[in-house]
C-alpha cells in the first residue's frame, strides 16, 4: 500500500505513555486521533514496536494484551485470542501470508514514548 498523495502530511507524533509505563516485554493500547488503535510494545532488548491493535483473525482489539517473544530471533507478538503469531518488524502473520498488521513508527524521547499518527505504509 504505497501512498498515492504527493503531499504527504508531516509525521505527527502522539504521546502514547510515560516511558516508565512500558516495561520490557510489555504492551499497551493507544487510541489514535482517527479512531484507529495501535498496540505498542517494548521488547526485552529495549526495542519499540507498534502494530494494529485489532486481531485480524477475530476482529477484537486485543493485540496489546498478547505475549511478546521471538521466533528464530525475529521479534513477535502472539495474539491473546487464538494465539496467532505476528512479526513485530513487519506485522506479517507467521501463519497466513495474506494477513499483515499495519505498523507505526515509535520513538522514546526519554520521558515519553511517542507514536507516529500515520501508519508506515501510508508514508511517502
Amino acid at each position, binding site marked *: 500500500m504505497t501512498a498515492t498523495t504527493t503531499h504527504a502530511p508531516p509525521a505527527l507524533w*502522539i*504521546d*502514547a*505513555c510515560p516511558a516508565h*509505563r*512500558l*516495561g*520490557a*516485554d*510489555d504492551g*499497551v*493500547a*493507544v*487510541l489514535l486521533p*482517527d*479512531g*484507529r*488503535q495501535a498496540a*505498542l510494545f517494548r*521488547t*526485552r*532488548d529495549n526495542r519499540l514496536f507498534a502494530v*494494529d*491493535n*485489532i486481531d*485480524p483473525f*477475530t*476482529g*477484537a*482489539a*486485543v493485540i496489546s*494484551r*498478547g*505475549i*511478546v*517473544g*521471538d*521466533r*528464530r*530471533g525475529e*521479534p*513477535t507478538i*502472539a495474539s*491473546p*485470542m487464538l*494465539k496467532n*503469531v505476528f512479526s513485530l518488524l513487519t506485522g506479517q502473520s507467521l501463519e497466513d501470508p495474506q494477513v499483515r498488521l499495519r505498523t507505526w513508527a515509535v520513538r522514546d524521547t526519554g520521558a515519553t514514548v511517542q507514536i507516529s499518527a500515520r501508519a508506515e505504509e501510508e508514508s511517502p
Partner: protein
Amino acid sequence: MEELVVIGNGMVGHRLVEALHDRDSDHRWHVTVVGEEPRTAYDRVALSSYFDGASAQDLSLGDLSGPHVDVHVGERATALDRDARTVTTASGRTLGYDRLVLATGSTPFVPPVPGHDLPGCHVYRTIEDLDAITASARHARTGVVIGGGLLGLEAANALRLLGVEAHVVELAPHLMPAQIDEGAGGLLRRLVTDLGVHIHTGAASTAVEAGADGRVRNLLLGDGTRLDADLVVFSVGIRPRDDLARAAGLRVGERGGIVIDDTCTTSDDRIHAIGEAAAHRGTVYGLIAPGNAMAEVVADRLLGGGATFTGADTSTKLKLLGVDVASFGDAHGRADDCLDVVVNDAAGGRYAKLVLSDDATTLLGGILVGDASAYATLRPMVGSPLPGDPLTLITPEGGAALGADALPDSAQICSCNAVTKGALTDAVHTQGACDVAGLKACTRAGTSCGSCVPMLKQILSQAGIEQSKALCEHFTQSRAELLETVRATGTTTFSALIENHGTGQGCDICKPAVASILASLGGGHILDGEQATLQDTNDRYLANMQRNGTYSVVPRIPGGEITPDKLIVIGEVARDFQLYTKITGGQRIDLFGARLEQLPAIWTRLVEAGFESGHAYGKSLRTVKSCVGTTWCRYGVQDSVGLAIRLEERYRGLRSPHKLKSAVSGCARECAEARSKDFGIIATDQGWNLYVGGNGGFTPRHAELLASDLDEETLIRYIDRFLMFYIRTADRLQRTAPWIEAMDGGLDHVRDVVVHDTLGIAEELEAAMERHVHSYTDEWAAVLADPAKLARFESFANAPGTPDPTISFTTTRDQPVPGAALDLGMPAPRPQEATR
C-alpha cells in the same frame, strides 16, 4: 475444484476421505460421500465391543463433513451412469463426478438353506445387526452360530455375553480353517469348549426349522442331529458388494469383487474400488489392513502420486473369549520345501508353529494359540533372517525377550496400517514424535487393532527420545526438567532462567509455562513485576477473555454453597454493570461482558461482599463440586458439602500444569459426578473413596480408584501428595489422566508413591502443599490493594477511561451479548456502539 464421489462410508471409505483431507492442502478435490447406513463410519473391527459396553458413539470414527467434504448418511447409491459420469441415489439425488470411488464393502453371505430367512435368523456386520441380535436374545436360551471362523467365534462370544448358551457349527474339520492348521485348531477347540461354547466341526447345516410361533426353533445338521436354537447367526463368509459396478458394466472377478489393478483402478479409469468390494489379483481381502492400504493408494493417486498396491499381509491376532490366537505370514506353509518348528503343549494350553525357509534361516510365517505374546516381535520378522534358534523364539520366555532392535528397518511393525520400523524411527527423529500418541499421529501405527503398541514403546525407548521433550525453541528441557532446574537453582525470574538455561526472548509457549512453574513453587503474586508479561491471556488480567475482547468474572463459590445475601450481591453487581449472567457447568456463576477497565470496580464490589477470585482463568484448581449429602439428602452417608468446601479452600490458587477439577459425592449414587474429575471423592459407610485421573473435555475419562474407605485426614494427605507429585512431574498442559497414562507403571506407580511412599518423598510433597496453603492470598484483593497492578487495567495508555470503541453489544434473551464484529481493517466505531 474437481468433484470426487465416494460410495460407501464404511471403514475404508472413511480412511480414503481422511487421507485425502490430510494431504489435499491445495483443495484440489471437493468430496461427496454417500453412505447407506444411518450413521457415519464406525469401527467395524471393534464391533463386538458393543456387547461389552461400548456405545455407537464410542465406535464412531468421526464425521468428516467440512467445507470440502459433504457426507450423506442413510442414502444408498442405486445406479451409476459412466457416460454421463453421474451417480443416482435412492432419494433421487444425482451426483456428478470427475472421479468415483466404490467403497461399498461386503455383505455377509447367507447360504440358501431352507429357513434361512425365518425371524430369529441374523447376520453380524452392522450396529443394526447387533441391535437385532440383542432383541432376539431377550427371549432366547440357546443360539447357534453357523461358521467357525474369526467372526463366527466373535459372534459366539457375543451370544455368551447376552446370556445365551452358544453353539458353533463349522463345516471344516477344525475351527478358523482360513488362519490356522489342524493342530492349532484342536487346541483352540479345547480352550473354547472349556469356556462353555459348544463346538460342532465337520458338520453341515441342512435346515433351519421353525417352531409354532413361526420363529427359529431348531437347526438340523447333515447327520440328522437337531440342535435347539432360539436364534441363529450366519457367519460363513462375505460377498463383495459389486452389484452397482456389475450393472454399470465394470469388470468383476469370477468369485465376485470389482476387479482393480495395482493402482486400485477399475476397468474404467475414472473409477476406483477399495476395501472388501474390490478384487485385486483375484483376491478379495476380508481384513481392514489391505483396505486401508488401498485407500492410501487412491488418496495418493488423486493428488498425482504414483503409489501402488501389490498385495497385503493377512496376519491376524485376536483375543477370542480370552483366548489368544494369532496367524501371520505363510501360516499354512504353502512355500516349496518349507520347514515347520512346532511346540504343542497340550497341558500348558499353548500351541506355536513357525514356518521357515528350506534352509531354516528365514521366517515365513507362523501360528500361535493360547499365548500370542510373541506375535508383536515375530510378525515383523517375516521375510527376515532369524536372530536365533527358532525353538527359543516360541518357548514362553524367548519371544518376549527379543526387542525391536533385532529387526531391520524394512520390518513392518504395524500391519494394520503398513508402517515399517524405518518409518517409525523417522517419525521420532525428524517429526519429533516423542510418545506413543505422537507416533500414532505421525504414522497411524497403533491406531487400529493396537497389537503393535508394545513395539512402538520399544522403538521410542531405543531411539533415546529425550531431545524431543523440549518445551519450545527457547528451552530444550521438558516442563518437569525446568521445574527441577528452578527448584535446584532457586531461580525466581523468567529473565534469569532463559539467560542461564535457554536461548532467545521466549514465546507464548515457554513464558506461561515458566510463569506457572514459578507460581507453583510459591513465586508471589502472578502479576508481580515482569511476571505479568509472562502470563497467558486469561491470567494476565485475572479474568477470561471473551470473543469480543471483553472479560468474564467468576467469583469463587466453594462447593457450590452460597448464602442468599451473597447471591443477591452477585445479582446486583451483574445488574449494575449490565453483565450477561449464566450458571456455569461448575456450580457457580459467570458474569460476562466486562470491559478491561471495568474489572477493578466490579471486583471492588465483590471483594467487599466477601468474594474471592474463582481462578476460572488459571491453570489451577477450578471447582470442587458437591452434592448435598447428609446435609439434606435422605441417602447421604457423609457430609459431602463440608468436605468439598474444605478441599476447595485448601487447594484454591494452586497453580498446576493444567486445570484441576474435583467433586465430592455423599454416597455411591454419585450425584456430583466425582468420577469425571482429576480427583473425585465418593462417600462410603466407612469414610471416603478417592478416585484420580478423570476428566470431561476433549478426551473424557473416568477416574480410577486410588484408595478406599479413608478417614478425612488420610484422604487429605493423599490428595496433597497426589497433586504435588503431579505438579512436579507432569508436562505442560498435561491433565492428570494422560499424566498417569504416560507414567511407567501407570496408576499402580501413582499408588506406590502416594499411598505406600515408595520414593520416600511423601513428607516433602506434603510440606510443599502446606506452604501453598499458608501462603495463599486472594489474587484479586491483592490487585485492588496495589496501584502498580491496578494501572494495567486501562483501555488505552493515552486515554485510560475511554471504552474501546470497537466493543458493542446487542440483546439476546433479555441479556447483553457481543454485537457484530467490526469489518476487519475498519477500526472506526459503528453507530450502534455504546449501548452501554
